[in-house]
């Protein structure tokens, strides 16, 4: 018991945010008489908030390196409009339009990265300019709403993974299979990481804690899988895309030389430069990266709306930045995790959905979200101060 308490004591920050998410879910579950966790709502939660999660993945890296990107919302509108025009007006095929959108996203990122990394203009200013530039371009391009778009494209945002395995009772078998793969993947990767630590004679978590953690995480995945399998379509396609991105970028940030350079530059830029890290290249690549992810978010948003709209992506940058900060990314850089930002995005998403179910006025929703952001960061800072005193 003592061991457990000490373990949780050391990891308050990490578990605090998960606990906050669970509390908020429970609160709304009670307030909405159980409607929040209805299977269809769970699926909708992921579909509605996919854009925040996708953008937050890139935003974490940008903030860790000590920058910020204010332009992602406008870039989503610009590329979203472009991809709609390519399919609707120019008759491009869906895969070609998607590919083109990704290329344009990378180019937008390279444009901003150039000014930031090689000219040395602060990212705040460059992306503030980008926010205006790309919003303007989006309005010029789109003008009137562009619709309809090919249904195969719209499915990316609205559709679910095709159920070719039928049903077990009420449950969608494909979803169950995906859930099982996720749980097995989790267990295998955790066990392997632990074995590797033991092999090198390094300290590992107490066995009971390790197993407990696995059981809790596995149970959460199983629960979500169960709900999704009962939902109208099963697993949303966009959830799979987000899952792959999260896994890929977590690997990039934690295990690759590039990711380590990002944390090094964010923690102490001068020390990193004197260690032979090319901070400029790191900065440049980070903005190319978030440009790419903005394109992915643009595709998701446009597909979900089923139309290209000039006003798309309004305030997306703020949602993404808020998700990062709620998830424990440090404003000063150097610290931040993709997993944290994902939980931050889910907290915002659950708030949105719960308040909507309760039919709370949109203006009040915004005020409440702002308050939650403030409280989350305040909690973070206060808990750190306590930690420092010890």
């Amino acid at each position, binding site marked *: 018991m003592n061991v457990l308490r000490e373990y949780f004591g050391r990891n308050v920050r990490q578990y605090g945010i998960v606990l906050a998410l669970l509390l908020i879910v429970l609160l709304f579950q009670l307030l909405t008489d159980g409607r929040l966790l209805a299977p269809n709502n769970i699926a909708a939660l992921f579909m509605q908030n996919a854009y925040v999660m996708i953008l937050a993945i890139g935003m974490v890296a940008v903030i860790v390196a000590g920058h910020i990107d204010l332009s992602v919302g406008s870039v989503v509108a610009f590329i979203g409009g472009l991809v709609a025009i390519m399919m609707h007006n120019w008759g491009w095929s869906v895969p070609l339009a998607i590919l083109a959108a990704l290329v344009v996203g990378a180019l937008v990122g390279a444009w901003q990265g150039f000014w930031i990394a090689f000219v040395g203009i602060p990212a705040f200013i460059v992306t503030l300019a980008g926010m205006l530039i790309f919003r303007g371009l989006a309005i010029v391009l789109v003008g009137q709403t562009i619709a309809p778009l090919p249904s195969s494209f719209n499915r990316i945002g609205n559709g679910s993974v095709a159920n070719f395995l039928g049903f077990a009772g009420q449950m969608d078998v494909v979803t169950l299979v995906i859930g099982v793969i996720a749980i097995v993947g989790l267990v295998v990767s955790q066990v392997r990481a632990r074995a590797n630590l033991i092999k090198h004679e390094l300290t590992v978590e107490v066995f009971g804690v390790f197993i407990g953690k696995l059981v809790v995480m596995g149970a959460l995945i199983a629960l979500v899988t169960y709900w999704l399998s009962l939902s109208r379509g099963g697993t949303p396609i966009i959830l799979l895309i987000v899952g792959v991105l999260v896994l890929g970028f977590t690997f990039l940030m934690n*295990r*690759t030389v590039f990711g380590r350079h990002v944390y*090094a530059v964010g923690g102490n830029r001068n*020390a990193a430069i004197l260690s032979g890290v090319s901070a400029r290249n790191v900065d440049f690549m980070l903005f190319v990266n978030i440009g790419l992810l903005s394109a992915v978010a643009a595709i998701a948003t446009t597909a979900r709306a089923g139309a290209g709209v000039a006003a798309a992506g309004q305030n997306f940058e703020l949602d993404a930045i808020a998700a990062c900060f709620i998830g424990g990314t440090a404003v000063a850089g150097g610290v931040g995790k993709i997993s944290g930002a994902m939980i931050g995005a889910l907290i915002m998403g659950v708030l949105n959905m719960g308040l909507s179910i309760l039919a709370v006025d949109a203006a009040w929703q915004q005020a409440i979200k702002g308050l939650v952001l403030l409280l989350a960061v305040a909690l973070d800072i206060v808990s750190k101060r306590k930690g420092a005193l010890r």
Partner: protein
Amino acid sequence: MATDATAQDGRGAGGGAPAGDLILQMRSISKEFPGVKALSDVTLEVRRGEVHAICGENGAGKSTLMKVLSGVYPHGTYTGDILLGGEEVRFKGIRDSEEAGIVIIHQELALVPRLSLAENMFLGNEQASGGVVDWNKTRSQAAKLLRRVGLHDNPDVTPLDIGVGKQQLVEIAKALSKKVDLLILDEPTAALNDEDSAHLLGLIAEFRDQGITSIIISHKLNEIAAIADRVTVIRDGQTIETLDFHGAETITEDRIIKGMVGRPLDNRFPDHEPQIGAEALRVEDWTVYHPIDTERMVVDHAHLTVHQGEIVGLAGLMGAGRTELAMSVFGRSYGANISGRIYKNGQEISIRTVRDAIKHGIAYTTEDRKALGLNLIQTIRENISASALGKVSNWWGVVRGGAEDVVAEKYRKEFRIKAPTVESVVGKLSGGNQQKVVLSKWVNADPDVLILDEPTRGIDVGAKYEIYGIINALAAAGKAVIVISSELPELIGVCDRIYAVSQGRITGEVARADATQEELMRYMTMEKTPAGAGQAQEGTN
């Protein structure tokens, strides 16, 4: 009065020194942090009007003791009594202690770089009436105080316009603007060159004559010997002894070291048998201009060679261009309009970036390890691998977790970095251990030439000895080592050959056998005018 007897008398009720003589008594101070007993029953007695030094290795508890005294740790968070002028005081914060006349000057300078000296000196203590600042009063008071510490600078200039040495004096002037009976200086000369240090120490002696009592914390034992009346030695959170420089026993530096480390240090520098091989690095005609003030020549046609297995020193006063020379060679990380040639193993090489320098086997450890050397929020492991991540990752850029841990663990053991695991955050380590992390990082990059800039700055005697051992081991392994230091005894004790730098020029070159502090100092202060002298020296290179 015998030394040990002094401490005894102090503890005894009304013994040797009459109570009225004591401005400060700290009795049985204990302070615990969770899991650590930082101070245990520490006793400190300071006589009115003396300069009292406190000595101890890093982590011995000196800073904690001063934080207790100045109210950073408020009353109630420690046990024991503090008596000021015979009366018990209970400080709730720094404001309380300042009101009682205790002013502490911290090791890290706390001037705001873009505010004027006058504004800095009266920050938090503005010369105002009714909330409106009286600028004329502020300026005239500031100028007066600056003159009192021997500065004749305009109080309207900013700290950026004056050197580090003068900044320290401004801090003292700032302290004098308050009512000060007891001045505490934490490592006041750590960042100063010998000249500025001497000036500062003279100032402290002057204050003593004016009736201000000073407590000085320092690693520089020669300074303590020069200025202090008494010294209290602290080790592992306990008072070891109080020595009186005016007592019967002559107090030598070695005597103080004995108290600090708990054993006599026979030799402050480990033995070193040079095995000098072929030429490793040669820098010719190296000229560097200031990066902002591009008209100003910072390094002036410098020539420099270092051989495999050789330890070469660079002696110079602060601002002489030592660091600038080293950093400009290390991938042009300093300066503008750099010209000159670099030869590695006899071949001319071109180094344009830090990465080039590392590729060519050159490493540089900075004098400012917190700002430029380490990522303080990351772990020992991450810092050690930062300069050579390629060595622990596969060909497509994925870091092999296990391999990295093994490397970090190896250096933790080999260099005896005092931390429970390699996952400890570097910012929480002591200066000596941080320096060992910096050294690990660069030794791990496996360079042929290491340039170590002030490798022992701000670290304690025991850790210094270990760092010297590491330097010797590197040379014994055939590496060429360049050591930059402000401490001449250190250069003479460690190096096989020493270059003196003055005003950006190499003004002298001295072999270890011939090196004396006086000789080096003569070269280090050589002015630019006699071109012949400089020329003659360059001829010997």
